[in-house]
């Protein structure tokens, strides 16, 4: 029994000490991030090289990170929360998990509709949710807007992923904000009636389904198409080359966009470092790397979109304050459930 205790104590000591954050000497910044791209890791390393500040990262889905921050409370070691949509940042703010920070650089670099009114969070990159279609099967004169997707002429043609996905939730939130609640319900029901198949898979799967002839129009984020066009897998490149992209609502409010963004945690032990990291990520050359590696649109307008994105054509974006997407998220989920969009 004595040995058991000794073994247990040893285990305890071995497990806790090396991973406990050392706050005393090392300059560091702790990041809770939903984004787990290789480019993010590379940029964090570059940040460390330039500033000497170590970046510690925990990756998980934004939803789980929020619950983790909430549970850890005042002890939460996170300095920076990074998500891949605005809705979760608004939710973090609502849950009182973020703190305001006033930065000249952020204010000058990022358009006001891309950050929170209270300076709680800011966008880092922009992605547009667009329509991919089979050019030989779709008459684009009948397909100009998201609203057109609900028209009965597209019965059996529309492909999309599940409504549990945040990108679809934010899209519907933008429709609620622009068209009103009852129109939004009619839209969701109309699109559902046009499904080529039950919502399933991810964005890339919808593009492949067009190539496979399962449907004609897919709702996708721009960067997935960019990544498919440059995929390791030749068959994926071929599928992406077979579709064309359409930026909806160019003649009225503009195409729905979403962001990935960051906010400083309420109890951040290294607030200054967190701000430094945000400002670093907004710098022109860093934004350029985001754009080139991940096919996202830079928020720093001095940086150019990647060549591949430029080829997709320039477009007008919906300037609806992203804050609204977060506020309407719950309602959007409710509507999806009501109309039975998985």
């Amino acid at each position, binding site marked *: 029994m004595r040995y058991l205790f000794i073994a247990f104590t040893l285990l*305890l000591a071995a497990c806790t000490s090396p991973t406990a*954050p050392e706050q005393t000497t090392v300059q560091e910044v702790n990041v809770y991030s939903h984004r787990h791209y290789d480019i993010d890791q590379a940029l964090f390393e570059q940040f460390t090289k330039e500033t000497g500040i170590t970046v510690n990262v925990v990756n998980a889905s934004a939803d*789980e990170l929020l619950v983790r921050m909430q549970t850890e409370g005042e002890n939460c070691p996170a300095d920076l929360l990074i998500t891949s949509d605005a809705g979760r940042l608004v939710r973090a703010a609502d849950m009182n998990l973020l703190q305001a920070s006033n930065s000249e650089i952020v204010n000058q670099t990022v358009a006001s509709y891309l950050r929170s009114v209270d300076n709680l969070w800011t966008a880092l990159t922009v992605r547009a949710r667009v329509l991919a279609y089979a050019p030989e099967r779709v008459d684009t004169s009948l397909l100009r807007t998201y609203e057109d997707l609900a028209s009965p002429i597209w019965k059996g043609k529309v492909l999309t992923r599940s409504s549990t996905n945040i990108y679809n939730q934010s899209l519907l939130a933008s429709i609620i904000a622009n068209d009103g609640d009852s129109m939004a319900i009619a839209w969701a029901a109309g699109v559902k009636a046009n499904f080529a198949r*039950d919502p399933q898979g991810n964005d890339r799967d919808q593009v492949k389904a067009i190539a496979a002839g399962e449907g004609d129009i897919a709702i996708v984020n721009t960067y997935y198409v960019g990544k498919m066009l440059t995929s390791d897998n030749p068959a994926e490149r071929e599928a992406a080359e077979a579709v064309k992209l359409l930026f909806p609502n160019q003649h009225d409010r503009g195409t729905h966009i979403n962001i990935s963004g960051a906010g400083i945690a309420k109890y951040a032990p290294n607030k200054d470092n967190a701000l430094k990291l945000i400002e670093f990520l907004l710098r022109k050359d860093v934004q350029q790397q985001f754009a080139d590696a991940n096919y996202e649109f830079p928020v720093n307008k001095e940086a150019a979109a990647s060549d591949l994105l430029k080829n997709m054509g320039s477009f007008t974006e919906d300037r609806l304050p992203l804050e609204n997407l977060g506020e309407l998220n719950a309602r959007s989920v409710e509507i999806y459930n009501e109309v039975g969009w998985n």
Partner: protein
Amino acid sequence: MAGTDAPYSGLGKPGFLRVRRGGWLILATLIAALVLVPLLLLFTSIAADGGSFDQLSNTQLPRYAINTLTLVAGVGLSTLFLGTSLALLTSLYRFPGAKFFRLALLLPLAFPAYIAAYVYAGIFEYSGPLHLIGRHFGKNDLYANILGMPGLIAVLSLVLYPYVFATTRVAIESRYTSYLESARSLGLERNALIRKVLLPLLRPAIAGGVFLVMMEVLNDYGAMKYFGIPTFTTGIFTAWFSMGDLGSAVRLAMYLFIIVVMLGLLESWYNRRNKVSESHRSRPLEKRQLQGVKAFLATSYACGIFFIAFIAPVAYLFYLLSIADSSHAIAEWPKLAGSSLLCALGGAALVLLVVVVTQFVRQLVKSKYGFWVGKSIAVGYTIPGAIIAIGVMLFSRLVDNTFNQGMIVAGSFLALLFAYAVRFAGVAYQPLHAESEKQSGRLFEAGQSVGLSAKNLLVKIFLPLSRKGILLATTLVVIDIFKELPLTLILRPFNFNTLATKAFEYADDEMITRAALPALSVVIVGLIPVLLLHRILRSR
């Protein structure tokens, strides 16, 4: 999880012995409490949150229920069929490759369900290898969209049938043989013997295997989500994590728990009804040589399943690997594999500590209380990983706030290991319980009667006699932790990635080619404990 305890009716129990056992009983109680506290905290925090809204609509609930039941029943039935038929075939007959298939058919166990989901969908999709090869030969329709309910049932069955296969195989080979002997001496012909005597005797083992399969199905999340099947499990995630709707999440968790308890009761009722008292071993039933067409069919069947469930997905992963740019994953590989190993071994050690102590004490005190202490630690296996993660977080914060005013336990590797113990003690419970059940009595009581101290009873009798149970438990837990996802994702410390989390991240970013290297590593490294499992099963 069947198990009944005969009231203690052994030899005299001198007072001093009982006092010394008291310490052990307290230790076991403490350990069980430690395992249960996170779950209790969860319930109290939910109760405190009482007013949280509950907007689960009437349209969702039936859909969740129907999907959950269809999935559980579908996978249950198909694994029942696959697992039992393959076990009977390879254990009772000789045919070309039979010996090889006894091992080979266990291998799909190394595949995490979520990886299998991406892999099978990838094989059959439009950009998949089947279509590419078909096109090469002028056949243009060799692709299919397998996402959806039938596909999900098929995929889960292919990775989970080994549970039934293994439990049935063990039962055929080690147990009831003496029944068969006596039945045979009554002049029953072999096929009738198998049908009338052996199959009924195997029922508890088969039911145990199917029960494990159903638990695994209910804990899956990644595969359900990718295939677009909303169930109670995915509903809990959506309600709690996405909508902050604790009320709905709790209601769903409750329904899920009810299903689990009902399945558990069904299984133990069924097993009690079909209980076979274990008899001394005798010569196993002789294997019969299959000839001609029958042998060919047997080999084709085993080979077909092995190909579909293991060779094809592994080959596909290798194909992805060959076209992928894996530079990043290669550079990280040693660290990833190291972390996976550390999780698996550390977690297994903690699980063993919990289960060995509680089972030993159960044996030592032989009271109803001791029995329930021993059994209570298994409850975490019935609760989805992500929910346990929240409970462990609450617990870590409580510890931190009580003993030090910072974050020591929360967010540490220890908290992660602890969570594994809460979740997987139930996996180790079964084999250890079975083992100590078998040896209950004789030697242990003899030891007690000659006044061996509790420590000596543990070290000299319990541990050596439970050796096989411990080995089996360790292997099962290591396999499980190796594949584990939700707990590790939510609880891991800073800068900590395992092969499984890395594979998931790439797949989640829709970069399935880059996921190939870590995914393949999970499977291949996972083969080591599976091979070990095979050896243990064989030697039983």
